[in-house]
């Protein structure tokens, strides 16, 4: 069932060094992304999911930096070596290839050549705001072909051809004409499609999507998600989808990582997470989704008690302790819960399951 491992994150710590103090945005995160699979990272705002994603590409904003941990990238064969100069994106990708080359992305120089070769080629990323994430003064074509020309030996014409092909793939009508347009001439949904086309231009092994649908309306959101699924079938890349929307998770995910305050609360496959949430935080999150089929008058949405603590004043022990219904005084506020393996790739960080 499991495809080969693509990314293996071990004890990742990314901290921001501010004058007011150090913000431990990511504080010891472990999880794995498998080839061709979709991993969803969920959590409230500020829980460190975006930072984790950016850490993979080493594009964490100043003054943040990875202080500890490993991000092991098992580079698929087809990407090892020079690049994909002659390779056109094939619908089935290079599925099933075993990883031969393992690179620790966390150890690379963020400005170095190696990580730059991986960015955009092996791993690419799309962002929340398609408007501001595209340069307002460059044409769509320019911005798509940029990565192609950077990572392949394609000539201008070929790159343009390829860009048109990509635009068609992401469902943009009259793609040839679109090359010359500017982002501000497109609608929000179109822009996000352009972003996706751009991200897929080099047929990456992993596409990181950082809340790609937050800024678009509901119908577009559905279309975009659908598109991503389609493209995953076509291109065969793994997707790391960052969202706070559990509905999206339910629809898209193969695996789920639930994060809270820079740490993983719980992870596992989507089925078990949804049907058998272990961590009190996951449970609380799930309770807060409106359930279809339950009469509205009967139901009130549950919410999580209290607020996310101040990033400078992190609680001791379990991060979720102060808001937890199952808080165990003397333990939860003393011990930072270690990962407890529940088998089948499931893992939870909660002292409640210590004995099991």
């Amino acid at each position, binding site marked *: 069932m499991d495809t080969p491992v693509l990314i293996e994150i071990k004890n990742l710590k990314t901290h921001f060094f501010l004058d007011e103090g150090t913000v431990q945005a990511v504080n010891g995160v472990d999880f794995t992304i498998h080839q061709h699979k979709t991993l969803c990272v969920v959590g409230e705002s500020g829980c460190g999911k975006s930072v984790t994603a950016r850490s993979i590409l080493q594009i964490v904003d100043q003054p943040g930096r990875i202080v500890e941990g490993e991000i092991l990238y098992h580079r698929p064969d087809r990407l090892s070596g020079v690049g994909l100069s002659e390779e056109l994106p094939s619908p089935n990708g290079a599925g099933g290839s075993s990883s031969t080359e393992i690179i620790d992305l966390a150890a690379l120089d963020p400005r170095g050549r190696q990580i730059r070769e991986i*960015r955009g080629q092996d791993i690419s990323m799309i962002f*929340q705001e398609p408007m501001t994430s595209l340069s307002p*003064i460059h044409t769509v074509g320019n911005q798509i072909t940029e990565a192609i020309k950077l990572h392949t030996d394609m000539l201008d014409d070929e790159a343009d051809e390829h860009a048109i092909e990509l635009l068609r793939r992401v469902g943009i009508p009259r793609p040839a004409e679109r090359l010359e347009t500017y982002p501000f001439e497109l609608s929000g949904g179109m822009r996000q499609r352009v972003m996706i086309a751009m991200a897929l231009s080099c047929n990456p092994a992993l596409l990181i999507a950082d809340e790609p649908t937050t800024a678009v309306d509901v119908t577009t959101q559905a279309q975009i998600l659908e598109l991503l699924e389609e493209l995953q079938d076509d291109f065969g890349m793994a997707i790391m989808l960052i969202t706070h929307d559990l509905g999206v998770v339910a629809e898209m995910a193969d695996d789920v990582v639930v994060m809270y305050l820079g740490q993983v609360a719980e992870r596992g496959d989507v089925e078990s997470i949804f049907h058998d949430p272990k961590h009190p935080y996951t449970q609380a999150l799930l309770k807060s989704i409106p359930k279809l089929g339950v009469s509205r008058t009967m139901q009130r949405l549950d919410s999580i008690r209290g607020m996310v603590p101040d990033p400078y004043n992190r609680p001791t022990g379990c991060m979720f302790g102060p808001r937890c219904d199952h808080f165990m005084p003397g333990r939860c506020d003393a011990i930072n819960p270690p990962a407890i393996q529940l088998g089948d790739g499931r893992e939870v960080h909660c002292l409640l399951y210590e004995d099991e």
Partner: protein
Amino acid sequence: MLQFLLRRLMFMIPTLIAISIVAFVIIQLPPGDFLTTMVASMAAQGEDMDQSAMRALEEQYGLGQPVHIQYLKWMQGIILRGDFGDSFGWNKPVAELLWSRLALTFVLSLASLLFVWVVAFPIGIYSAVKQYSIGDYFATFIGFLGLATPNFLLALILMYIAFKFFNQSVGGLFSPEYQEAPWSWGRVADLLAHLWVPVVIIGTAGTASLIRVMRANLLDELRKPYVVTARAKGLPEWRLLFKYPVRIALNPFVSTVGWVLPTLVSGAAIVSIVLSLPTTGPLLIRALLQQDMYLAASFIMLLSILTVIGTLVSDLLLAWLDPRIRME
């Protein structure tokens, strides 16, 4: 685009008329006129002028006429014959006077502009990219220092230092032997040897503000998400910097580039006086102080027109650079 240009040119006509009136009014603002000013300054030197001579001059200059008649005559000359009138103080046609000084003025202005840009751009970019670094503080400090020093004081002190410690011939743009010599390589070299002092002095203030503008613009742009997008594509930092944020940060810059030339012409006036440069600046100041009416008014006109045209050029450049504006 052509229509845009035509419309803008149409708009310029009333502006120019208004400017010509204002230019004329400005020199009428101070009490007295050229003659009274001249008599007073002559008297200050212990010299005097005969009453009949004064009346002759008044007639010659047409100062006895009402202001609006003087204005209309002046405008008539400009429109019909391209004649800007005569300078009282120099006893010469205004146009001739201006032309004789414009070449060197432009050399000086362009050199200053070049200096300012060459210095300010890299520092501004560095300062933004390395915000709050030692280098940023240093650049900011030096920049503000240039901004904070009154230019005329700096000019005087530099000149004194040149005299005292380098025994250099001071003032002007040429050594005495090249003053009136025909153009030759030697003269060009001599010009360059003299040019750097005013260029540095004029440049300091401009550099400072440019560094600030560049830094601020770039800081804004650097925080935009498209920079992260570009970075995520694997672009090298420097290429990313220049292709995206620097390029966009230039826009506000370009929108003021049209104002640079008139500013450099008039802005350098005070320094040029202190350094005795044969540029248009001192001509302007002197004309204003002496109330040399047509010279001053024509000068103000020229500068204003340069500003208006410069603004137009800026707008065109901006439209050319920024598709968002072009599409509007």
